């Protein structure tokens, strides 16, 4: 059951219902519900999520998973509170208030009886920080406590590996361990084999151990230096949190914000970032402040238009890279063509977090891959004869899925076809959505 048909709610409905789950959506807005009921295969109930009667009517007594993602913190918390009277297995609430999210908050998850409290803005800020740390990648996911990384890169026009097959690339440096998990070509996900050839404009996903990251990036001529000058356009919650975390490094940060009052707040709460009170689209002023020399521009204002235009402006004047916040998921493929490096939408980041959390039972972690229908999960190999000491190539993993890494007793390695697995190992598996069900069934004990 999902309460709140906002952006996160809609995205989650879409995701869960396409996997064949029964989804009930509760919201006050009737028009929205009618449209969603038509578009997605879900049941909708009109009413307030904070009302016990409405929730009962929506069938909360049969619900396993309860997600409250309305715009109001109070409604979400009350809804979760009501759900405590029923046999709901997992409760998730979205909140905005910073006070609730602080690690030392009095009202923490335990006190509130909620399994996961998430904030899209915080999740987004975390995501941005992760992306900054692996500079050229446009997408990143971590597995097994950060030992294994999945990084997405764009293959540019003049990349040396264009026209080469995976087999050929593998021969260049046989000692460098990595798995090419996927190639996204014109919106289509390919789980590659040895004979597939890399083309200009491909997005490639590489899975590797964190300690090998530098080696792999060198092999693929991707640089991963920390940026030294960052511009943040938009001093909202996301901009503020990113700046505050980045201040711990020696990166030079400039924040552009239109609102004078907010500027004062920022300068008061940040130690040495330079806070500029101006319009994020004022080209003259931005150049005066040296946006053309910036390594990274993070556009996170409330308006997607400003973010997109601001990023384009910065790119035009010579910024190396930009991370752009957008609110409409549908725009992501188009932004690519415009030359925006990384587009993130807070709702998707938050929804990913929820999905990752929900699947946690026997699957250790999940990441959805931006703008594709692929996912990565980490599963534990069940204790069954079928998996005992079997070589990967004999395992008959369902089509459309690929084992990227194996974690045995807390240590991760990148497998080859001859590597044998054992029950209790964790496997990091990359798969397309069509294969999702099959993969889950495959690993049922």
């Amino acid at each position: 059951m999902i309460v709140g048909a906002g952006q996160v709610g809609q995205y989650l409905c879409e995701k869960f219902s396409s996997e064949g789950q029964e989804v009930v959506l509760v919201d006050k807005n009737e028009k929205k519900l009618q449209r969603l009921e038509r578009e997605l295969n879900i049941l909708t109930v009109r009413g307030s999520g904070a009302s016990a009667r409405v929730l009962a009517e929506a069938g909360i007594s049969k619900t396993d998973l309860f997600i409250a993602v309305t715009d109001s913190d109070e409604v979400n918390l009350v809804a979760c509170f009501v759900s405590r009277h029923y046999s709901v297995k997992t409760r998730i609430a979205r909140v905005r208030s910073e006070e609730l999210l602080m690690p030392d908050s009095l009202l923490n998850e335990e006190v509130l009886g909620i399994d996961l409290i998430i904030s899209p803005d915080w999740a987004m800020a975390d995501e941005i920080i992760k992306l900054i740390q692996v500079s050229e990648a446009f997408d990143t996911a971590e597995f097994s406590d950060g030992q294994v990384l999945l990084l997405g890169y764009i293959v540019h026009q003049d990349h040396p590996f264009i026209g080469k097959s995976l087999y050929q690339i593998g021969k260049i440096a046989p000692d460098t361990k990595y798995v090419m998990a996927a190639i996204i070509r014109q919106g289509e996900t390919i789980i590659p084999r040895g004979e597939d050839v890399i083309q200009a404009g491909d997005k490639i996903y590489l899975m590797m151990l964190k300690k090998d990251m530098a080696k792999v990036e060198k092999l693929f001529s991707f640089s991963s230096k920390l940026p030294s000058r960052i511009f943040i356009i938009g001093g909202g919650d996301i901009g503020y949190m990113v700046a505050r975390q980045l201040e711990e490094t020696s990166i030079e940060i400039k924040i552009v914000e239109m609102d004078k009052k907010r500027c004062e707040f920022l300068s008061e709460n940040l130690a040495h970032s330079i806070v500029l009170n101006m319009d994020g689209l004022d080209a003259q002023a931005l150049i005066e402040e040296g946006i053309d020399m910036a390594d990274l521009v993070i556009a996170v204002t409330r308006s997607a238009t400003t973010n997109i235009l601001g990023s384009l402006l910065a790119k035009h004047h010579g910024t190396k890279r930009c991370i752009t916040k957008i609110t409409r998921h549908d725009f992501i493929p188009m932004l690519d063509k415009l030359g925006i490096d990384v587009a993130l939408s807070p709702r998707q980041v938050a929804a990913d977090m929820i999905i990752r959390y929900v699947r946690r039972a026997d699957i250790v972690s999940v990441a959805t891959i931006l703008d594709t229908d692929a996912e990565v999960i980490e599963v534990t190999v069940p204790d069954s004869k079928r998996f005992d000491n079997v070589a990967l190539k004999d395992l008959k993993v369902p089509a459309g899925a690929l084992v990227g890494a194996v974690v045995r007793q807390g240590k991760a390695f990148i497998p080859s076809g001859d590597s044998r697995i054992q029950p209790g190992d964790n496997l990091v598996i990359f798969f397309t959505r069509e294969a999702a069900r099959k993969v889950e069934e495959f690993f049922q004990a």
Partner: protein
Amino acid sequence: MRIGGVLNLLGRLLIVLSLMLLTPVPFSIYFQDGMVPAFLTCSMLGLTAGAGLIILFLPEKELQFKDGFAIVAFSWLFLALLGALPYYISGCIPSFIDAFFESMSGFTTTGSTILSNIEVLPKSLLFWRTMTHWLGGMGIIVLTLAILPLLGIGGMQLFQAEVPGPTKDRLTPRIQDTARILWSVYFLMTALETGLLMLGGVDFFNAVTHSFATLATGGFSNYNASIAHYHSTYVQLVIIVFMFLAGANFSLHYMALKGDLKAYWKNEEFRFYFYILACAVLLIFVANHITHTYTDTFKNLRDTLFQATSIMTTTGFGTADFDRWPPFARLLLVTLMFIGGCAGSTGGGIKVVRCLLFFKYARSQLHRLVHPRQVETIKLGNMRVAQDVMIGILSFFAIYIAVFISASLMVTALGVDIVTGPSAVIATLNNIGPGLHLVGPTQNYGHLPSLAKLVLIFCMLAGRLELYTIAIFFVPGFWKMTRAPRLRWKRPV
């Protein structure tokens, strides 16, 4: 200004001080120096004057912010006059202006003296000298607030006027409790230093009087040679440590006594205070070393440490004649004189926090030239400094410079030379004590013209009350608003 209420309170404070004038009496009896009649006379005079004021003028129900300034300024002036009487009546200081200078120098914790031979003074009078330091250090009005409900009305206005400083740290919601805490810490530290000095072989009388002078950052010593009289490194070290502590914010000592030792380092002003002092010691030490001022390196280090601490905390004790140090070292000491101690300490000077914020402001203006659209807030620690506090600091500097220049001009106009005059003004305006050349550490202020002494007395008072309390009297509007006093007996019409 409600002059009646001001005078009534002044009467009460005079009575408090008159009682304090009795404290030297036991010493006088013990040492048999024949000062008992003098102190009793002064005390009686003070009591009579105080009682007269209380009887004549009715108290006001409430006091305004402005009245706080008036009370503090008036009471400091009259308390210093009363405190001068023992010197004058006993005949130890024949000129009244000199006695007034000595008394004001005591109360304002300056430590400048007009006496050329201190050691011939009766013991009880020496005790009174340092007693004035001790009372003036934490503030006699704060003391009155702390121990007596005598002042009746909420003392915030008075507290603010007597313990100035750009920002306030109130430890408790009630100002009386804050005053009590500050005086307890002050008292405790005095007792501690007395004990430590006695462990080093100093007798009780000298231990107490020197502790008074250290904790108040005053600088009166019972010996002509000041602390150099004690050749013991231990005694000098104890005094260095307590001078340093007295120059730091007493709220921090309170927190440390409650167990939060990290409070010191968390305080940005304290860190800055420490760094400045450490740099100054290092630079002076090197300067002295290069110019071969000392043959003994250890003695150089000890004297440099002592003098730099003594000057920066505005104490003014001496173990060395720094007037013979190289010009660079002397100028550096003068620079330290301007900076002074921390806010909320007993030290004088501009105060570390003011300098810190002043330069932070200048830096933010420079930043604005580079980034015209930058928004920057001035922070102290993690707290934002309000705009009006900043403006207050900037105007403090303007008034400070005005007072410094006009006082220097006046003193030099009276025929004092160009090093002695301004350095005497610096030493008194910042409540330090010794200046340079003819008012240097081995000299005294006795030879200056009487008018110059009056100017310096004004400087001491203005410096101790951090300018605003005194400067407000020069605003014509302040006097125009004076209301007729309410007398207890109305004159028959």
